């Protein structure tokens, strides 16, 4: 009998040698005359277990990981193909506390199926959302999204339904759906993981958006740092088209929707929606003034929905299980779940999807298991390079858009980067300014020039010979940050002060 084995075709697993395992296991199985079938799934999100191999046995699916090349003969000797005991054996991966405590809605299928297979996707609820949405009017689709409480997962947390309604109500001969897959924030990888592990959920979400508002063309703007993602997404688009879900007659509805991937070219600023639209038009990725909103005048001047990958990939489950079900997760105005990404100096990093409301400490301690180095934790940056640095004393802040804002931070895209005691926050603050100066589009002065002056000022603070001089420079930095915050055109210049000032506020001793 042929044994089914799962080995992720995914960036994290690949970065740790998964492709070599595929080859080695195939060779060894052939040599031992054991028939196997290797399924290329996505990652289940437990990066610390990658490369994670799963085997389908009579008693269910069991995992082994992290597997190294030299473990292969040993695993065969231990009969891992029938679930044999081994030092790397994990038993049922679903039963591990790390997975059991999660609430997976958006990532429910990720890692479970052959990533680009329409048949396997459909078997686990895929395209059920689309079928439900096709039975509704555009206005009712938008209402369902509104009722679910879904807010933009790219970081700005704008209510998705309101954006969709604006595009639905706009009159135009052509409308567009644009997926922002320019996941440039350090510490974030949820977009990549869903595009590599369950790309059809993003495709389905985009189709639902397109049919709801009357857009016939969709673009995925994907960052060039993700070449493997491009391959997988391309394959998924081709499979969806072959199965009749894309093209001139989507799922037999008589409605048209087509999808195209466009690659970015290494500019962080193109994650900002207007800059992204400029780039999609083949121009320099410079910010546009708002208004007009992209929802009214977006790509090529036409009404355009610009949504993040996770926002769009969450849409199918809302239609599959109902808006009420989705909104039953989370709390207050932060409804549903967020795929948190735990990285940096942490023992058990990866993707953890949970309802809003657990605390930062629960995330880092219960899931992350503390720092990788074993040294005490000193700082946590949440929300990417434009998010605040929190000290240990703020770890009990609930992960919720409003609570984070109240604590002086930003939840953003849900990236959490842990630092141990070796971190110097003056250096990190300087880096924030440096990053802004490298990645600024240059259109507005506070961002373009302010970031350079910011670096210089932090250098002067650190080099100050006496307390008086240091305080004087701190005042300059504060003033500069206020200017950047209130006078920049977009979030890049407007939010760079957040990591800088939070570092000053909570870790002032590092600047002495």
């Amino acid at each position, binding site marked *: 009998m042929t044994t089914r084995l799962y080995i992720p075709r995914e*960036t*994290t697993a*690949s*970065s*740790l*040698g998964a492709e*070599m395992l595929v080859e080695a296991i195939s060779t060894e199985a052939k040599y031992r005359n054991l028939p196997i079938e290797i399924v290329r799934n996505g990652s289940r999100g437990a*990066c*610390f277990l990658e490369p994670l191999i799963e085997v389908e046995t009579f008693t269910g699916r069991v995992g082994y990981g992290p597997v*190294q*090349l030299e473990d292969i003969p040993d695993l065969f000797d231990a009969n891992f193909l029938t679930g044999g005991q081994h030092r790397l054996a994990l038993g049922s991966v679903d039963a591990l506390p790390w997975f059991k405590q999660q609430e997976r809605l958006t990532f429910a299928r990720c890692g479970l199926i052959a990533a680009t297979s329409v048949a396997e996707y459909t078997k686990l609820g895929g395209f059920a959302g689309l079928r439900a949405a096709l039975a509704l009017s555009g206005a009712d689709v938008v209402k369902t999204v509104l009722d679910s409480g879904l807010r933009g997962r790219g970081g700005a947390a704008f209510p998705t339904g309101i954006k969709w309604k604006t595009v639905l109500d706009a009159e135009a001969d052509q409308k567009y759906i644009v997926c922002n897959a320019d*996941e*440039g*924030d*350090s*510490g*974030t*990888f949820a*977009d990549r993981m869903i595009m590599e592990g369950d790309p059809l959920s993003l495709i389905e979400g985009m189709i639902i958006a397109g049919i709801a508002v009357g857009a016939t063309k969709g673009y995925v703007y994907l960052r*060039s*740092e*993700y*070449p*493997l993602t491009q391959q997988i997404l391309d394959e998924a688009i081709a499979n969806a088209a072959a199965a009749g879900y894309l093209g001139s007659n989507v799922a037999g509805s008589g409605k048209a929707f087509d999808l195209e991937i*466009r*690659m*970015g*070219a*290494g*500019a*962080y600023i193109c994650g900002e929606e207007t800059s992204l639209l400029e*780039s*999609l*038009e*083949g*121009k*320099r*990725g*410079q910010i546009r003034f708002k208004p007009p909103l992209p929802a009214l005048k977006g790509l*090529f001047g036409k009404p355009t929905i610009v949504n993040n990958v996770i926002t769009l990939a969450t849409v199918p489950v809302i239609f599959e299980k109902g808006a009420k079900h989705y909104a039953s997760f989370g709390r207050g105005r932060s409804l549903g779940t967020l795929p948190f*990404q*735990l*990285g*940096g*100096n*942490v023992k058990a*990093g*990866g993707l953890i999807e949970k309802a809003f409301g657990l605390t930062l400490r629960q995330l880092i301690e219960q899931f992350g298991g503390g720092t*990788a180095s074993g040294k005490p934790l000193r700082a946590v940056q949440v929300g990417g*390079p434009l998010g605040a640095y929190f000290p240990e004393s703020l770890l009990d802040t609930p992960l919720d858009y409003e609570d984070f804002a109240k604590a002086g931070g930003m939840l953003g895209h849900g*990236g959490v*980067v*842990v*630092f141990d005691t070796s*971190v110097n926050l003056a250096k*990190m603050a300087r*880096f924030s300014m440096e*990053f802004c100066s*490298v*990645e600024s589009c240059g259109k507005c002065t506070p961002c373009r020039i302010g970031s350079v002056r910011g670096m210089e000022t932090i250098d002067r603070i650190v080099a100050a010979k006496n307390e008086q001089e240091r305080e004087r420079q701190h005042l300059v930095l504060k003033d500069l940050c206020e200017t950047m915050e209130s006078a920049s055109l977009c979030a890049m210049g407007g939010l760079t002060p957040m990591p800088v000032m939070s570092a000053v506020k909570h870790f002032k001793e590092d600047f002495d």
Partner: protein
Amino acid sequence: MMPVVSPAKLQEFSLDEATRVVQEFKDQPGTLINALHKLQQTFGYVDEAALPMLAKLFNVSRAEVHGVTSFYHDFRRSKPGRYTIRVCQAEACQAMGSEELSAAIKQLLACDFHETTADGLFTLEKVYCLGNCACSPNIMVDKQTYGRVSPASFKALTQQLAEKAAVSK
């Protein structure tokens, strides 16, 4: 355990070939960046001589083509080494010692960022986030990401890459 990739097969630049490979983008709205990617895939960089041709193809000014080419970090204006190594400099990798790793890499290759090694084998670049932040520090060689890289594993990797490059000359 590190996968060893073969160096990309690049052609010598010629305007005829450049013109030929970008024809698929003619009359495709907004595809100037696609065309630049195509040139870079084919030749390893975007040659100055290709810019007027692109301006004509997309019916924009040469200044606009220059503006786009120079705006994006990806587009090189000169030939790279046989491998391009990008070292992540972003926060998550910094939390796991990317600064020390970068210093070790520069010393080992005896070249700085944005430079190519004397033997023409490696071009060293910075990158801000490869999306593998739970396995930091990360580097990327051409299109392959490597997680949890140490100075020692990097040294072993470059030796293997050099051997591979010598074979595939």
